[in-house]
């Protein structure tokens, strides 16, 4: 059952240098109970896509889409209502997401009071239960602690508990482990997988880290220059990418080359976001580029549930 359906999403932000196309055309299709990875490097528009889903784009930004539906509701109009009720955000820096002068208990209570008005004792019990559900030890004692007394991993668990407290069934996680140590981040991701399984949540995992995708994602979409270039099962994208950019990205990873050998770096830079793109966005940097690629936008190719946009037919090197 499809929970989130997005087609042709674009976000244009006005700036002194002219309109910036932060997102040019992104398609997303996320089923209920799925952990969907949104993969890309800086400047690809992945964070802005997440913001558009929440209705949190910068002032003056224009958000447009052909299809923009969450559980049947049109996100263009109801994003504000859904935010914090059905859709919650877990962002990169947990310390910044928590108020440093309020206790954990107070912050949990603030969320619970807004979303499920119950008597105070019930709310407190509810908060403790949620904190415990995220694997935090001594949840009862934690209620009186301040965020700075917690480690980064514990802070992130509190943020996840807050997201659960809203009753949201769709979590947008924007690089939730980038600011955490590797081992701690692995635990947080394991927690998310467990919550998805136990509570039927759906997660959009925005990340640039392939290890994160490998660890938790069921399906994934690769973004480049504000465009979705490949979508499919995470395992398929990681082991057999089809789009030249996805291939190049995976080939550039340090463990893709033998020890001491040169890595397969990608030449060139991403196209500027203030200029329109003719043809394929990746053409200037693509090793398999043809003359056609510079002028004609690439067609969508399908293989089962795996989609990508490329002029080069599969089977070519």
């Amino acid at each position, binding site marked *: 059952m499809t929970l989130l359906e997005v087609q042709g999403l674009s976000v244009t932000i006005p700036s002194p240098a002219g309109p910036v196309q932060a997102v040019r055309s992104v398609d997303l299709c996320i089923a209920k109970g799925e952990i969907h990875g949104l993969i890309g490097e800086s400047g690809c528009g992945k964070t802005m896509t997440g913001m558009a889903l929440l209705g949190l784009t910068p002032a003056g930004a224009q958000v447009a889409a052909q299809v923009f539906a969450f559980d049947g509701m049109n996100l263009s109009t109801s994003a504000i209502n859904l935010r914090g009720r059905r859709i919650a955000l877990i962002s990169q820096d947990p310390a910044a997401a928590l108020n440093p002068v309020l206790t954990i208990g107070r912050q949990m209570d603030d969320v619970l009071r807004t979303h499920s008005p119950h008597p105070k004792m019930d709310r407190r019990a509810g908060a403790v239960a949620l904190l415990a559900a995220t694997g935090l030890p001594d949840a009862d004692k934690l209620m009186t602690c301040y965020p700075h007394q917690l480690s980064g991993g514990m802070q992130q668990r509190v943020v996840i508990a807050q997201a659960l407290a809203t009753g949201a069934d769709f979590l947008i996680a924007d690089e939730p482990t980038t600011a955490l140590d*590797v081992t701690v981040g*692995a635990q947080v991701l394991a927690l998310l997988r467990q919550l998805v399984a136990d509570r039927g949540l759906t997660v959009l995992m925005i990340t640039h880290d392939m290890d994160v995708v490998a660890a938790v994602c069921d399906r994934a979409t690769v973004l480049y220059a504000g465009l979705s270039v490949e979508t499919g099962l*995470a395992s398929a994208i990681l082991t057999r990418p089809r789009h030249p950019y996805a291939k190049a990205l995976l080939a*550039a990873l340090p463990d893709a080359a033998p020890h*001491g050998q*040169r*890595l397969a770096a990608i030449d060139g830079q991403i196209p500027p976001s203030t200029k329109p793109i003719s043809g394929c966005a990746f053409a200037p940097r693509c090793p398999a580029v043809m003359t056609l690629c510079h002028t004609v936008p690439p067609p969508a190719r399908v293989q089962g549930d795996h989609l990508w946009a490329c002029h080069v037919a599969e089977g070519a090197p």
Partner: protein
Amino acid sequence: MTTPLLTVHELVVRYKPRGLFATPSKPAVDRVNLSLPAGSTLGIVGESGSGKSSLLRAVLRLVPVESGGITLDGQDWLATHGPDLRRARHSIGFVAQNPFLSLSPRLTIAQILAEPLLARGDKPGAAMQDHMALLLFRCGLPPDFLPRRARELSGGQAQRVAIARALALSPRLLVLDEPTSALDVSVQAQILNLLMDLKADFGLSLLFVTHNLKVVAHLADQLMVMRHGCVVEAGATQRIMAAPEQSYTRELMGFGQRFGQNTKP
């Protein structure tokens, strides 16, 4: 048996606790030993609080050392002070994590590159300009970058400038603190390639600190895993990656192997 370029012997670094009545803190670096032969690369891996950054800063003489010794090129490094220290620093190049913070935002690239040269006593002039253009060229940047400022560059370009600056005085030892952690994967690949090329061309020794085991496994001859100020495991990279002894090392490696992709041939 050639003397190693850098040795660290039973090094202890402890930060003073704040306040009059605070209990003494645990050491950030707890009796660490390492040996870096000339021309090789040592990667130090650890998470936050492991002491790897404190170890690096101790080698760079940015933090005081409680006990232990460091020798650089046979000399007692910790006993060098004043003008001798400043001169000796010329044999170490340093590249920090965020190039936009380690390059002065106010100066042009030319002024940034000139700084170490002037510190050595070179006279400004055409020869210096040529030298700077050469430094940029070796790091893959054209000379027309000289009049620009750091904020006009991309992350990868700025880090190349930082590497060029680190190599300005032809050091023998290059110390790098998470040089690619702030960069995208594709840019990281370019920088790692650049470092490998420079190492081969100039016979550099590299001391590389990172939290990313995969990066360091690709680049380093020797590996040292740190945790809570102590060395957990150390030795040849390929041996450790093939058969890690400690479970912590395995934990650092194990993340992300769910699909078994990208296994080394």
